[in-house]
């Protein structure tokens, strides 16, 4: 564990509000992205990520540093998402069609109009493709592809073996490939 992280944990455990804000500002995007990968909805992902921060704030005194702080935080997000999924007993964790209607304004892709249209279509198809992944596959894919987390850390977060992480990652990419087969890379 890095010295900076130990100091941050120490400050958090002493109830330093500035330290907590620092933690939030540093990790809010990553936790949100992970939550979004599992719940598939912006508002719900924000709720989950905020719940995770609240839980971190409450439980930081119990954190002994056995794992990395980031792994511990990711694990909290994963558990919150899984709990929501159990409560809902629905497939709502899958990515939803209405993402574009969440009221979130996104920057338009740069380039000519044809490229913009193609990028928009790809995003739409990608969302469909992500729905074909299981929650575990989707989470692993997001953690590795988007979050750039090492396989070992994903293994720790998901509490599965590193071999299973690789295996699930292989299957996830395979499913995406099948779903996006009509896209040809020049």
């Amino acid at each position, binding site marked *: 564990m890095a010295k900076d992280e130990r100091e941050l944990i120490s400050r958090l455990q002493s109830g330093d509000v500035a330290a907590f804000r620092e933690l939030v500002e540093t990790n809010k995007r990553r936790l949100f992205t992970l939550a979004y990968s599992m719940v598939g909805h912006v508002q719900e992902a924000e709720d989950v990520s905020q719940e995770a921060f609240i839980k971190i704030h409450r439980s930081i005194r119990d954190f002994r540093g056995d794992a990395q702080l980031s792994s511990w935080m990711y694990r909290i997000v994963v558990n919150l998402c899984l709990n929501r999924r159990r409560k809902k007993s629905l497939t709502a964790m899958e990515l939803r069609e209405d993402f574009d209607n969440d009221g979130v304004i996104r920057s338009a892709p740069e380039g000519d109009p044809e490229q913009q249209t193609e990028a928009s279509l790809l995003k739409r198809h990608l969302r469909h493709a992500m729905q074909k992944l299981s929650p575990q596959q989707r989470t692993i894919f997001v953690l590795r*592809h988007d979050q750039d987390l090492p396989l070992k850390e994903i293994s720790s977060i998901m509490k599965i073996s590193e071999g299973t992480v690789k295996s699930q990652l292989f299957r996830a990419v395979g499913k995406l490939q099948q779903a996006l087969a009509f896209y040809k890379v020049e």
Partner: protein
Amino acid sequence: MVTKMHACKKYQEMIAAHWFGDLTPKEDHTLMVHVESCDACREALELGANTLSTIGKPVTPELPEHFWDGYWLRLTQKMDRNKTSERRAWSVELPEFLRAQWSPILRLSAAAAVFVAGILISRVWWMPQQATQVAELPQPSPNYKVVPVDARTDDLLSRSKVLLIGLNSLDTESVKEKEFSFAPQRKASKELLAETAELRKSAGTNADQQFVELMNQLEIVLLQIAHLEAEHDINAVELVQTSIDREGLLLKINIEEMKRQIIPASTDKSL
């Protein structure tokens, strides 16, 4: 792609690691050697790499900055709301907790409270009922009616009993030997007769039958006494004694007195 990989499962994990640059150079070389001789694995490796290239980064939405700028504020507001709701939840959950955790104690307490309440209620309601039952005890039969009593009746019975005991215990043999005057007994008997007649008249048809019978028998005996000869009327005395014994008059007077002692004074009515 996946279906073609059945024979090369052990290389699937290596291919996945290769896509994301997680293989060591040695592992990467091993994989490359394999894919050169395995069409299925080579195809899977290439298709997967092309897919990831097509997808690009990231697959998650790019949110505008103002969304992130307000994140801290929304988080702190949520924390405040949670604190408030936790306080409310505590006030709601505490009774639930007590019900759940202290349920046996509460049940025992409730049972004890009900028991004590039962005793108190029984004392308030049941005991007066007992008193009423005691008051009703003297009624031996449905035909029995409580005899109205007053001081005159008590006095009559008391004086009659004294008179009868005196005559009943008289040794007729000793009377023969001495001069004995029955004048006081005759006088007392006449007064009692007068009072008896008055009481019977006052009681009317509502009087208790036993009391009426007692009065009748007493009246007969009193008449016998009233007609005793002034001196040495031993035969008449013996007749009186026989009448007292045969009718069990002293016993009946005693019973009547006892009955009147049990009946509360508040229920008494003057004849």
